[in-house]
């Protein structure tokens, strides 16, 4: 360990556990000045993380109330969760951590908000369209390999979330971003099962039909696929794909 490493470890401890942990001989100036300086650094760190959580979860915060959200945020940070994450990624750790807390109706809302941010940052990709599929003969259509668009996400929904999104009541919602902006749609059960199969792995249309036929009535399969394609949730995978069943 170098002296620089020792100094940084001591400063980290002082920020996390309090300025009384600063080695007495590390800095010039009075003890009060050192205390205030480290209080300022600790405040900057804490404030930046709290603001990042507030900005990532505005609706969950409103639903929980400022006091409860602040309490949960501080408990999350005080337990050391997310301390290795950047401000841009700390919300992912918080959304996972909330799973084990008593967040009530706000849990699906928070998890939706994190999924929204993931979708917002996801890679661009040309979404498959019904027009694309319509140009294929049956053989080529069945061999076409489908996978989820990089920005497609699915979340559990509750009444609080559908109220916020102004959607009809549903158990699942899907986020897609085939163009510039994110679109949010209610998912029916057959569509959700189709999403699951594509989430699991890329599949040819024929394989997807075969898999879905074990999960739903055959008359429901095509409408479910069409719904996902029409929403922009699916892309066509290149032909180098090797399918495993």
């Amino acid at each position, binding site marked *: 360990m170098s*002296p*620089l490493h020792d100094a940084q470890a001591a400063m980290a401890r002082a920020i996390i556990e309090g300025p009384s942990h600063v080695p007495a001989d590390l800095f010039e100036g009075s003890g009060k*000045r050192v205390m*205030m300086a480290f209080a300022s*650094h600790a405040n900057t760190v804490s404030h930046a*993380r709290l603001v990042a959580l507030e900005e990532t979860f505005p609706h969950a915060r409103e639903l929980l109330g400022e006091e409860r959200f602040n309490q949960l945020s501080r408990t999350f940070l005080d337990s050391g969760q997310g301390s290795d994450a*950047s401000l841009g990624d700390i919300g992912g750790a918080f959304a996972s951590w909330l799973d084990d807390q008593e967040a009530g109706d706000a849990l699906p809302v928070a998890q939706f908000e994190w999924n929204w941010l993931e979708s917002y*940052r996801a890679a661009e990709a040309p979404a498959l369209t019904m027009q694309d599929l319509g140009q294929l003969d049956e053989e080529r259509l069945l061999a076409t390999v489908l996978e989820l668009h990089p920005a497609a996400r699915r979340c559990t929904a509750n009444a609080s979330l559908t109220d916020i999104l102004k959607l009809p009541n549903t158990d699942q919602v899907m986020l897609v971003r085939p163009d*510039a*902006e994110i679109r949010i749609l209610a998912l029916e059960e057959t569509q959700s099962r189709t999403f699951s199969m594509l989430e699991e792995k890329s599949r040819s249309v024929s394989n997807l039909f075969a898999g879905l036929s074990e999960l739903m009535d055959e008359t429901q399969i095509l409408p479910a696929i069409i719904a996902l394609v029409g929403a922009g949730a699916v892309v066509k995978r290149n032909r180098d794909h090797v399918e495993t069943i």
Partner: protein
Amino acid sequence: MTSIPLSSSGAFARPLPPKAGVGLKPQHYSEVLEDGGDATTPKKLPGWVEIHPQNYFADGGPALRWLTAVAEKYPISFHSTGISLGSAEGPDMAEVDRLKRLIDRVEPAMVSDHLSWNQTGNHNFPDLLPLPYDEPTLDHFVRAVERVQTRLGRTMLVENPSRYLAFSGDTMSEVEFLTQICQRTGCGLLFDINNVLVSATNLGTDPAEVIDAIDPALVGEIHLAGHATEDHGDFIMAIDDHGSAVADATWALYERFIARSGPKPTLIEWDTDVPDYSVLAGEMAKAETVLLQHTGSHVAAA
């Protein structure tokens, strides 16, 4: 004394002009992309813009599209906050790789980070933490800058920090430390004049001495920002919060430096309680006034 190289990558196709720029915030995207108003209500547009690249680390999406649109209109400076150049474990090279991907996409005129550290062990602090000014730390920091510049394939600027405390083991001044870094790595200096005032207030030193000791040839960009102060009875602590207008004392130090250096690209930084664009435009206009007063009396080094 080494002058700052403009570029080692050819990416400085549009160098930062020696004008006033602004730290770009999402709420001002539309205003900086619109025209400059009309004859009766002209709008002050920035000469260039700066962004925090970490806010645009994404595989795709709207934020990158905004950034691309802004880059088509303005020279851009990337002001990174996450490389942790001064970490004892070395810089965060995964962060450098993310930065490189964005640089390749947008080709900014300048890339900078800080004379500070923010990572140790499993901790990633959203703050700019101070380093001791001694020979081993200087050697360590120089190696870090060289490593990052090699990975980026270009030179960078390093910003002088705002300090709340001096290390008891400091063996050289901040100016000496920064000058050595620039001379040994070929990097330049992002000279934050508000930070000079904040550090001087906290450490009881003379800010004018720092202003007069910095070699203008090293300076590729200047930052101006506001700060807060706390009265602790027996001392005043200045907090570098970027949440208010540039202080009069900072303007005076800026004018003192520009009188010696000639015009330099100058950024108005305002990161907390961000005001309407018109307020930032007013601050830019003040900086432009200073820059214009000293245009032509020096060889512009931008």
